[in-house]
């Protein structure tokens, strides 16, 4: 993708508002390609607002600019144009990170540290000390279900465990905003379900969550609003229900309906000029089936013991 005239989306309305967890205004990021005249535009004239307390999903295919946007919001890279704010303060200020937690995509932590040591290290970076730090580490290990593995080195952790310790470190400073880059990538369905439950729990506690993902079904379950990025531009944005609703269609799910009743419903619909588009037996999702099956085998193994 080369730099060309950007198609601008709607400008931010409440720049500098401390009630906005994240405000991105006219953000453009251009990466120069060494030894070439060309440059790569990763993000183009992006405007984005995340309200305090909501779960916002930034969606898009690989290379659409999701991670770059998150890194700029966190001050890890600088924008070529435009600006980003966290709770009304410019995100290039290190102090803004006092209220932010971040879990990068497929994180690697220091393999030579144990789970508890990892959390202690990140806690110290956030200014936690003494009993306060010890209690926080203990509480978070419990929250992410790693109390039993607290003294195990990270080199022995599975992918799912690493993701959970990653979430715990992101929460160490009790952030008001948590940024998650592909939080369920590479995690099995059960681990992924745990992470989603944790995100919903954070939402209940008033924490703002900004996450990026390309696993759309998972996002659908937890996000209040989504923005879809394509080639660095925001192509759709809005509340999830509104975006995915098909306005002139309605679904009725029936239980124990006889073939006679179904026929009558179809006749009724035809009489009122409505059209039955599809009639099928309800199915469960493959994920739910997987979770139930693995849960059953776990509990039968448990009984056998």
């Amino acid at each position, binding site marked *: 993708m080369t730099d060309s005239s950007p198609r601008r989306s709607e400008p931010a309305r409440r720049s500098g508002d401390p009630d906005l967890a994240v405000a991105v205004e006219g953000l453009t990021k251009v990466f120069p390609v060494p030894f070439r005249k060309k440059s790569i535009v990763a993000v183009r004239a992006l405007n984005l607002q995340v309200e305090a307390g909501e779960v916002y999903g930034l969606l898009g295919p690989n290379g659409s600019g999701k991670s770059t946007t998150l890194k700029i919001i*966190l001050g*890890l890279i600088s924008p070529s144009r435009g600006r980003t704010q966290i709770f009304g303060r410019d995100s290039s200020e290190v102090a803004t990170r006092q209220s932010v937690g971040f*879990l990068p995509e*497929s*994180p690697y*932590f220091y393999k030579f540290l144990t789970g508890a040591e990892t959390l202690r290290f990140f806690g110290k*970076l956030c200014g936690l000390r003494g009993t306060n730090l010890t209690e926080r580490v203990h509480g978070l290990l419990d929250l992410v279900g790693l109390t039993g593995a607290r003294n195990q080195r990270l080199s022995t952790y599975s992918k799912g465990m690493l993701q959970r310790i990653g979430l715990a470190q992101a929460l160490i400073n009790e952030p008001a905003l948590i*940024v998650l880059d592909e939080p369920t990538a590479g995690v099995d369905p059960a681990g992924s379900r745990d992470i989603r439950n944790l995100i919903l729990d954070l939402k209940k506690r008033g924490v703002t969550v900004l996450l990026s993902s390309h696993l759309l079904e998972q996002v659908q379950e937890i996000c209040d609003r989504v923005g879809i990025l394509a080639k660095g531009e925001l192509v759709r944005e809005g509340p999830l229900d509104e975006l995915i609703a098909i306005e002139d269609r309605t679904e009725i799910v029936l239980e124990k309906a006889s073939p006679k009743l179904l026929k009558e419903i179809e006749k009724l619909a035809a009489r009122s000029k409505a059209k039955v588009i599809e009639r099928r037996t309800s199915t469960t999702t493959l994920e739910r089936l997987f979770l139930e099956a693995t849960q059953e085998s776990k509990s039968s193994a448990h009984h056998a013991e």
Partner: protein
Amino acid sequence: MSERLHRAFSPARISAIATNTLTELTRQRVFYVLLIFALVLIGSSVFMARFSFQQEFQILKDVSLGAMSIFSSLLAIVATARLISQDVEDRTIYTILAKPVPRFEYVLGKLAGVILLLAISIAAMGVLFAVVFYFREQTVLNETAREMNRGPQEQLNDALNAIRVAGLNGDVFAGIAVIFLKACLLAALTLLVSTFATTNIFTIAVMVFVYLIGHLEATARDYWLQQPGAGWIARGFLALVALIFPDLQAFNLVDDIVAGVAIPVAIFTKTAVLGIFYIVIYTVAAIFVFSGKEL
């Protein structure tokens, strides 16, 4: 939610990064270098028991201080080269810098961790050397006292004094302090190179090059300046070379110590100030480069 105040500079955060760096290096078993040093030291002291005590003490100092200098330089370069690049490669750096940690604190923490490692290693090598040396000195003193037992007291005292003069003295420790400074300087320069290098191999290759030039440049400079017509251009060029490539020969006090020449306080202070000057310059440059780095 957290309402803690953010401090623009926090020694506690630097200390957390430094301790973590030290733990990382320790758990990678870099201290095995010390075992090699112990073998060199003990091996050479056994071998040298055949020489006269002056020769033995001289060789022991030469071998030990030389090994200490090489091992600590090697440790400084190899341990530092991968610190930042590994964090970038593993993306650990994102989690650290997404916390309220200014970039200069991250660089200072990493350097402090390596300096701690060097201090512990050099202290351990120094203690080992001092213990081995002390026992050899005591053995020689006892043997001389036994051999000259029947001779005049004055002669015995002279002989024992000669042994003590050739033995351990403050200059040896001044020499070890300078070796430590040289290792810190190499660590700071390695950290600077690693902030813009793309691979560890590049950093180590550049540092080997710097190490060789650093040891040879003094000889080359003396030769050049003695040539007729060496004007201000040559002097300016040499000053520039000296800034980019530290004059490592200036940190070599081992030859004087071995020869038994007392190290004047002025020379020691000058060397120490030069070392600290280089360390500060390289660290500031590393912070400057790293602060502008896109991660």
